[in-house]
């Protein structure tokens, strides 16, 4: 830690930093008002897939960068799971060296354009910003600036591909191409390893592609980041399920020395209430994957999702918001969130809830589904919901919902998306009986090296370890695991 403090101090003392800091008095910086990112018109964007947030213009970015006072102790960094040098990249923007800012981001974060869009900055870096904790003012828009720098680089045509060490011809396998898998493979490639990422689906990107809709995270943004990895020598094999297509033993025989498991939490959960198996009732995973990856919004496609006119999405998390807003875009007349607690307890990001409301999403908070009904063809046509009230808080601090007797009523629906959580993907744990797993089905690892506690050549991170994580946490795991795998392999080589 001391080294990091010293390093940051040295960085902050550089001539260019001193100059830019002195260029505007701190008092004036503090008086500036936070720049808000503009958004597409809600009544237009809810009919198409264009990205909701339009990004900052260069003028806006420069103005916002001036708000950062370049604190001697940058508390914002303590809120970042991958330790981005936040003041440095912001000051690079202020000097109009945007590509330099992007390079700072990429030192520790392989997917800045993604994180700039989907990280919950309000609970991470921005929650620890000087403005938030000392002045009770809106924080520096770190997330917006991150996205600005990353997009600028992507659009500049001068995308820097990180340097990689001389190939060491040691094969390592990465299971899953989500944010954890992409992060670990980037770092392993930098160390010189021969990295192959095995992806079960036909598209690379994991939850970034199948889970997060285009209007929040365009696939093209993810593809740019994936291309960088390809240029670094990372190989990708799609439609390949490790544990089914080939076993870990098969891969070991092929020369793989270690594996990173980032297979995510793709097993949907349901509520176990009557009628949940009727046609027209989806898990959010299935619904979003069909729309995002399988062109299901196109009725002429092989596997369409019927565009529901009366869509209920059960749950209050980000996935629920993604599902309900997708339904609206597919033409739903009524697109409803049915959530059993109040808005205050909703796990979704405040921004997502705000966007959903602007787009005409109805919120039936303090309601819970009891039963689904279907027509003669077994297709859902209505559901019984019950009103709830809030009782005492449970261990998570959220107030427990309590049903109000006799408050049940019927709601007409033709599509229901159940978004009440996911479980870790069970395929890898099932393929490796010696792997220690928790009651939750997550893989138990050493939290510093991300190495399995029972099988030394297995490392893991992301949702398969955390149950549910943010993109940046998964990436942080991937980076730690890459260092852990490198150490493990090098020690093994030395021992032989």
């Amino acid at each position, binding site marked *: 830690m001391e080294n990091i403090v010293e390093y940051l101090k040295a960085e902050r003392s550089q001539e260019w930093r001193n100059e830019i800091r002195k260029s505007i008095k701190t008092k004036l910086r503090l008086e500036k008002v936070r720049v808000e990112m503009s958004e597409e018109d809600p009544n237009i964007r809810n009919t198409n897939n264009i990205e909701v947030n339009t990004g900052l213009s260069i003028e806006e970015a420069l103005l916002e960068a001036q708000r950062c006072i370049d604190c001697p102790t940058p508390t914002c960094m303590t809120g970042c799971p991958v330790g981005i040098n936040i003041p440095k990249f912001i000051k690079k923007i202020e000097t109009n060296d945007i590509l330099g800012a992007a390079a700072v981001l990429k030192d520790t974060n392989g997917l800045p354009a993604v994180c700039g869009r989907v990280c919950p900055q309000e609970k991470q870096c921005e929650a620890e910003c000087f403005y938030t904790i000392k002045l009770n003012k809106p924080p520096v828009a770190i997330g917006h600036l991150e996205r600005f720098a990353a997009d600028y680089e992507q659009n500049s045509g001068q995308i820097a591909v990180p340097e990689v060490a001389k190939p060491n011809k040691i094969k390592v396998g990465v299971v899953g191409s989500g944010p954890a898998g992409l992060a670990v493979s980037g770092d392993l490639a930098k160390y010189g390893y021969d990295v192959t990422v095995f992806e079960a689906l036909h598209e690379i990107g994991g939850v970034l592609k199948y889970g997060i809709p285009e209007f929040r995270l365009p696939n093209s943004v993810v593809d740019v980041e994936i291309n960088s990895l390809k240029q670094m020598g990372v190989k990708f094999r799609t439609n390949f399920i490790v544990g089914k297509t080939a076993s870990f033993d098969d891969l070991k025989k092929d020369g793989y020395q270690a594996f990173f498991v980032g297979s995510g939490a793709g097993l949907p*959960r349901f509520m176990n209430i009557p009628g949940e198996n009727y046609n027209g009732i989806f898990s959010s995973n299935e619904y979003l994957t069909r729309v995002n990856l399988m062109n299901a919004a196109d009725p002429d496609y092989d596997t369409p999702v019927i565009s529901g006119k009366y869509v209920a999405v059960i749950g209050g998390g980000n996935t629920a918001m993604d599902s309900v807003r997708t339904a609206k875009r597919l033409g739903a007349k009524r697109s409803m969130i049915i959530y059993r607690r109040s808005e205050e307890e909703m796990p979704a990001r405040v921004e997502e809830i705000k966007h959903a409301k602007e787009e005409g999403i109805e919120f039936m908070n303090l309601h819970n589904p009891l039963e689904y009904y279907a027509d003669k063809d077994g297709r859902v046509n209505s559901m019984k919901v*019950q009103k709830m009230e809030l009782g005492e808080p449970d261990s998570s601090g*959220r107030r427990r919902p309590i049903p109000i007797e006799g408050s049940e009523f019927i709601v007409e629906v033709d599509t229901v998306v159940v978004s009440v*959580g996911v479980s870790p993907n069970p395929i890898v744990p099932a393929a490796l009986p010696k792997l220690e797993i928790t009651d939750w089905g997550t893989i138990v*690892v050493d939290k510093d090296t991300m190495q399995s506690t029972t099988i030394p050549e297995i490392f893991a991170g992301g949702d398969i370890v955390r*149950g549910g994580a943010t993109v940046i946490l998964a990436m942080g795991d991937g980076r730690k695991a890459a260092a852990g795998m490198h150490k493990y392999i090098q020690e093994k080589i030395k021992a032989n």
Partner: protein
Amino acid sequence: MADLTTKYLGHTLRNPIVIGSSGITDTIEKLVDLAKNGAGAVVLKSLFEEQILLEADHKLKQAEKNDLIYSDFSETMDYIDDHVKEKELNTYIELIKEAKQKIDIPVIASINAVTSSEWTGFAKKLEDAGADALELNIFVMPFSFDKDCNENENTYYSIIKKIKEVVGIPVAVKISPYFANLGTVVKGIEEAGADAIVMFNKFSSPDIDIDKQKITHADVFSQPNDIFNSLRWISLSANRLNIDLAASTGIHDGEAVIKQLLAGATITQVATTIYKNGPEKINEMLNFIHNWMDEKGHNYIDQFRGKLSSSASENPEVFERVQFMRYFSEIN
């Protein structure tokens, strides 16, 4: 040898000793042992809504301790009680399925319901899993300062009606004695569609440790003296209701079983004595009943069931008072 067969909840039991819902009916091994030792039927340990919520709380605390598991923005944690409920229910369903394969006495599933909304779906699943009947252990807190009697009682009726709407198997209702007028409640339960009433629940009660000045739990086991309240109400209800009556709490030996049958019970539920003495106690109790019936010349139970019920009296209150006055006048 006397015939002990008894009809309860539409099933013919080989004898009237049913093992009550408790920790001795929660695994397949224990159930097999109970059946082997002569139990007439088993009521599986209840699925408790509150217990499931506590388990969910425990899981959340565990997740918080494991700092790798992330709970912000996660629907999983938000619905953890539902997921725990699902897991518990699936375990329970497996127990029913296994019990139906491995034992040949009726298997009665038991759920502890505090609301009428959530448990109807569960009840249907228990029926589908093969349960021969359902026992609803309804426990609405009887000491709320805000709810009046009618509100409490209507919750009972509502739960029963909703469950009866969704299941075809017989439904027994286990109640506490804490009602302003138990007689009308018992009638109301019958009218709501219950096929049997089990009298009564054994609650865990608070106690106080005066040295540590802390609230503790009182002994959860019943005592032989606990039989008298259920004996009274079985006696009062027998022949006044057209549904089965199960006596519970304080039945520790064959003599207690016979008392309840004489009062009018269809069957008796035992638990504490099996906890303390093991499943072999069932055989001992059955032998006692056989010997008593032989001695009294009874060939089958219906010959003496309800013989000493209070149904002969038109006004049970008078009957009760008369017993009371006679008792104390004899003492004096």
